[in-house]
């Protein structure tokens, strides 16, 4: 019933002069429309045919409008779900009438008409393949993001670049994370079993505390490359340390660390990297 009334309104609006254009299209968008894409393409064709009758000036205008359409994305999203215009027969009539009118009052309504034309084209584009639907667009963006992250992970996880398919890649990633966690556990176990030595090491650190500069200089002589960097590590206070409770619970005296730290990091530069690449 609503559709019928709006049809009537449409007809009446067609016979009205220029002002009725905006109304006409409002009704058009409000209508419930359940025609297939075939029908739509037919209407589109018809409109194209009728437009080809028009003067050269107008047709060129249309072409330029068509060129602009793909830029207007927002409108496309809005209009994607809205209903389209009426039956093709009526459509043809209306279009013919409309274009006659357009001929008459081109100068006044150019901008307005271009907007209306925009709407018409975009309906078709959104309808044809459902890929321009906002939901599927978001889905596509999400998929792109996932694949991008998968690529990053592929670079990180060794042996993952040979594998194709996301499921297998996920398998590899899971295995790698598990192996790394197991390695950490194993290492902490080893460190725990290493304790008597560590106790000595603790004693050493006590000694370091007494005369840190001497030991530091000896270490620096052993590692000449580290000479500049060790004072910076001593002077540095780590800003993130203060924020975290658990970090604070682990904290101890600051000046002991730099004695052992450069060595450890240096070793990690040299030794471990080769091992790590081998994995």
């Amino acid at each position, binding site marked *: 019933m609503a559709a019928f009334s709006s049809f009537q309104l449409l007809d009446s609006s067609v016979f009205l002069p220029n002002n009725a254009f905006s109304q006409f299209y409002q009704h058009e968008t409000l209508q419930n429309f359940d025609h297939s894409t075939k029908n739509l393409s037919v209407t589109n064709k018809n409109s194209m045919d009728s437009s080809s009758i028009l003067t050269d000036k107008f047709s060129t205008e249309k072409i330029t409008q068509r060129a602009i359409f793909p830029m207007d994305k927002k409108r496309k999203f809005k209009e994607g779900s809205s209903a389209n215009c009426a039956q093709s027969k009526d459509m043809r009539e209306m279009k013919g009438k409309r274009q006659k009118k357009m001929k008459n009052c081109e100068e006044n309504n150019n901008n307005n008409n271009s907007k209306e034309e925009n709407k018409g084209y975009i309906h078709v584009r959104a309808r044809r393949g459902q890929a321009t639907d906002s939901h599927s667009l978001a889905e596509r963006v999400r998929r792109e993001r996932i694949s991008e992250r998968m690529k*990053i992970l592929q670079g990180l996880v060794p042996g993952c670049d040979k594998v194709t398919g996301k499921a297998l890649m996920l398998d590899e990633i899971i295995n790698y994370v598990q192996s790394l966690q197991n390695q*950490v556990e194993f290492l902490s176990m080893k460190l725990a079993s290493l304790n008597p030595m560590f106790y000595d090491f603790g004693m050493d650190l006590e000694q370091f505390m007494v005369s840190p500069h001497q030991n530091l200089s000896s270490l620096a002589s052993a590692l000449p490359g580290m000479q*500049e960097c060790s004072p910076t590590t001593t002077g540095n206070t780590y800003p993130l340390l203060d924020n975290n409770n658990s970090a604070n619970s*682990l904290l101890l005296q600051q000046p002991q660390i730099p004695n052992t730290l450069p060595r*450890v990091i240096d070793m990690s530069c040299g030794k471990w990297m080769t091992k790590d690449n081998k994995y």
Partner: protein
Amino acid sequence: MKTEKNLPRNPSSIKTRFAVKFLQAMNKMNKRKNPSTSMAVKYKRYQFIRAAATSSMASAVGPRRAWSRAVLRKMRNHTAIHRFPMNNKTRTTRRFPITRRKRSSILRGNPRQEDDLGFGQEDDLRGLVPGGQGMDFCRLLSETAHYIKCLKTQVQVMTNVLHHYST
């Protein structure tokens, strides 16, 4: 390799901070614990070292990552429980694993949308990455990438500590 060379000159890098914190924690442990070699003590020591490794890694990363935030939260709860055993009740009331998962699944909408990916694998990954329960899949992947990087550095530093003090 070039980033590795820069590291000692960059005291605020994650590796350096992790090494500092880990050694501090080890030092603390060595001060506190008696040097007996019984199995129970060793096991306690192992647990402490493991906790120290994870928590120092997380605090080196800081609160900008979801996984490190999750670890830090867990550690804080853990230490709070150990310090104040009376708070066991609050712990049980605070942790709602089922409801949290429910809420996260509601927030994520339908969690079973990834038809092209294995769900079991995704859940496995969620279980592996700390704090992975409430993330969507994109977030989970990026967090996993960062977590893998951090685990790598952790393993590096720990092996070097081991090498350094075992020889």
